[in-house]
């Protein structure tokens, strides 16, 4: 019995641990690894590919590789030799076609597909469809160009098939130039250091987190306390109102902010009565709106937790204070706030970390603009780099680097907060043996 019981923690922890490990922990580790790669949408993520293309040859030419060798690498030769004819017989071309080709074209060599096709067109049993002509071309072509090799060995065999034998160091150069998949690099980190905008984005992030946090926690506390002293109907109403932004889809919520701030929107309309010219207020004061939009969403969570914490304060404690003739303000300051130290700390911690990694509302509101990264925060920059680029090429490796930097800061802050939380007390020893 004792032995079986001792497995209980394992069974209790296992499902959650597996899920977190699979979709959170291992991905975090992999992201760290990716930050040292050139991975992007044009390198692909899986598998290796070696292709000799026009670009490869151009690159090699620039690095001073032997011109005759490059000529050979780029060539496409169509030869009706024994091997080629054998391949033709195996294709699904009509036997009559293959027979005539073997009779009339055996031994002929063509240097371009066009010439080959012209020769084919003069046959009596000519391959009529493009597909059949291509079939001939594919059977007899000797080329390396634009062929895809999965491994270095295949690539070596491919070189041999067009009669190229090179020294090992030249082969390594060729292999490197033909490699289409991602490579190991530390350049992501050096690029980050070299960019003038890194510091700006960092400062933006600190600014955004600090002010939004201030707004969030301040309003959460204000609402929690105010609704505590209100009749139940009113407090329910205000809490519900402040929850609406949180449960709204972000596109709708942001659309409403834009409606509020645009030059034909609500603010301009109201200010119009005071003689203020209509203005696109969002572009004029982007940070104000970024912080407000995020603050109104974020306050609801703190509000709920604080409100429930106030409710949880035993009423005789408050009652006693009231009998002593303390005013509400004193009640709040002397009794409620000290008792709320923990929830305030929790919310502050939690919101700091959430805000550092959040970007969705900024993305929809200003998209980091206007201008040079005016409201671009770190997480949004990671998103822009790794996941969203109108013109397609997403830089996963660089995005991973940005994420790694963020998690570094996150870990440091978490450790700090854990210390404040008195972590040891959190993990107090169980009072029953398993």
């Amino acid at each position, binding site marked *: 019995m004792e032995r079986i019981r001792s497995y209980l923690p394992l069974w209790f922890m296992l499902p959650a641990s597996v899920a977190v490990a699979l979709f959170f922990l291992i991905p975090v580790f992999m992201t760290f690894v990716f930050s040292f790669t050139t991975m992007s*949408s044009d390198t692909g993520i899986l598998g290796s590919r070696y*292709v000799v293309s026009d670009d490869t040859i151009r690159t090699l030419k620039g690095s001073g590789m032997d011109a005759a060798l490059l000529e050979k690498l780029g060539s496409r030769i169509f030869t009706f030799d024994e091997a080629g004819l054998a391949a033709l017989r195996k294709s699904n071309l009509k036997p009559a076609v293959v027979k005539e080709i073997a009779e009339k074209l055996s031994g002929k060599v063509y240097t371009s597909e066009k010439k080959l096709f012209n020769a084919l067109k003069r046959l009596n049993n000519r391959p009529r469809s*493009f597909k059949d002509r291509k079939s001939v071309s594919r059977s007899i072509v000797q080329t390396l160009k634009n062929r895809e090799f999965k491994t270095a060995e295949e690539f070596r065999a491919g070189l041999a098939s067009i009669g190229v034998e090179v020294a090992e160091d030249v082969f390594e150069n060729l292999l490197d130039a033909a490699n289409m998949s991602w490579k190991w690099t530390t350049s992501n980190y050096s*690029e980050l250091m070299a*960019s003038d905008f890194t510091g700006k984005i960092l400062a933006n992030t600190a600014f955004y987190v600090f002010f939004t946090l201030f707004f969030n926690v301040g309003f959460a506390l204000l609402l929690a306390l105010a609704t505590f002293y209100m009749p139940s109907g009113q407090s329910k109403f205000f809490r519900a109102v402040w929850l609406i932004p949180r449960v709204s889809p972000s596109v709708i919520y942001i659309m409403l902010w834009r409606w509020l701030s645009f030059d034909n929107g609500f603010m301009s309309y109201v200010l119009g009565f005071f003689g203020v010219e209509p203005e696109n207020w*969002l572009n004029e004061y982007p940070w104000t709106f970024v912080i407000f939009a995020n603050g109104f969403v974020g306050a609801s969570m703190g509000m709920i937790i604080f409100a429930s914490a106030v409710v949880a304060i035993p009423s005789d404690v408050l009652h006693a204070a009231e009998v002593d003739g303390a005013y509400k303000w004193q009640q709040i300051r002397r009794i409620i706030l000290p008792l709320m130290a923990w929830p305030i700390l929790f919310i502050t911690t939690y919101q700091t970390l959430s805000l550092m990694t959040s970007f969705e509302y900024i993305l929809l509101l200003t998209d980091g603009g206007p201008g040079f990264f005016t409201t671009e925060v770190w997480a949004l920059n990671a998103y822009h780099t790794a996941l969203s680029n*109108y*013109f397609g*090429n997403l830089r996963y490796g660089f995005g991973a680097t940005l994420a790694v930097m963020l998690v570094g800061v996150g870990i440091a802050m978490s450790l700090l907060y854990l210390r404040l939380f008195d972590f040891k007390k959190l993990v107090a020893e169980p009072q029953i043996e398993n």
Partner: protein
Amino acid sequence: MSFKRLTMAAVAAGLFALPTAQAAEIEIEVWAPADKNERYRFEAITLAGNVLNEELKIEGSDTRVVVKKGTSFSGSQGWAQLKQGFSLAVEAGKGPHIIVGGHEDIPVWGSAGLIHPIEDYTDLEAWPFSDLFPSLWPIMSWNGQVWGAPQDAESRPFFAWNPHLKAIGYSDADIAALPDKVKSGQYTLQNVLEDAKKIQDKGLVEKGYGFYPRATKGGDYWQFYAVQKGGDMYDPKSGKLILDKGALLGYYQFFNDAVYKYGVTKKNHIGMEWDQWYNEVANGKAGLWHGGTWHYARYTRREGLTDFFDKVMFSLIPSGGSGGKATTLTHPLTYLISKRAKGEEIELAARLITIASEPRLNTLHAIASAHLGITKAQTKVSQYADDRWTAEATALLQSAFALPNSTDFGQYDTLVWKGLTAAWSGGVSPQDAVNTVVKEMQATMADKVIIR
């Protein structure tokens, strides 16, 4: 046997009989960014499927294709997701057989090995591709191969509100001659600013409405770089992108002047709502502006501008001054065959695309969405020829340019755009914006861009 049992037996027999009646059915899945007006991005392939099945019947083949409509997602955010989903899906051996992408996706997906080059599977020298507008081929090519077939074409014209032009002294004949003057370089961006100012000073439009550019970020803005002297974006010889400092300065300076010197464009224009924008330009609330050929559908249908040709002049984007030339951007979408397709599926996908590119089928999309056609013969298809807009706007295609097919384009584009918004509304001088962009590009993409 009761009647009920009989019917059940009949239904069962019918059910079992169905799969055996047909021979090999091959499913071809298509993904496309397609909303209601652009449904023919899919539907053309579906219609082509019917034709292909008849052809296969005649050829005596047992194979039949079934075209399956997959993910459709349009708009810039949605489209980015569609592309991202495609990349990952094909890497995992899933996703569609045919995708409609932008031509700028060709280098990225080609490089990652996600697509088959179409030139290997269909004869580009045969009908209908033999009849394609020749300027479209380079846009479909990358790294020495032709990868896709254009699905549509378009251009991004410059527009003016005729009644306002008349009010500042243009005669009907002047207006009629304006497109040619733009093309020959006699009417430049400088004239645009001056006319916009005149229109505004006359009180015809409100302040900031003289020149009314596109509402959001987009490739369109590259036009104002391309019309400058030396405004090249790509060096075919080295395969690298080009950033011309002089052209970049001219481009930033134009928008900076429009806002600060002439006051004909709003400082906080970018990021406004499209609904408002369309409504305003289609009702004469703006003097001069630029848009896309597909805007015609919106102006004339939803915004009710029925006398478009009386009210609106359209032309190329005027030259940026001496040494520059008028042009317009074309951004064709393209049918691409993904690596999800294997063996026979590739051939069938290529045949579907070929049939869907026939003038009559392609015209359905052109008319329904007010895009331009891809072949010369299309201009003779009655539906196309009878449509005054497509017929006249097609002429702009001859002077059009496209964004370069380069894997580095996205990073380059992002930076140049940021520079524009800084010079426009960020309180940065055009020269400083150019310097910042150049410096950042030297720091982060030195080996990918030629800065001159």
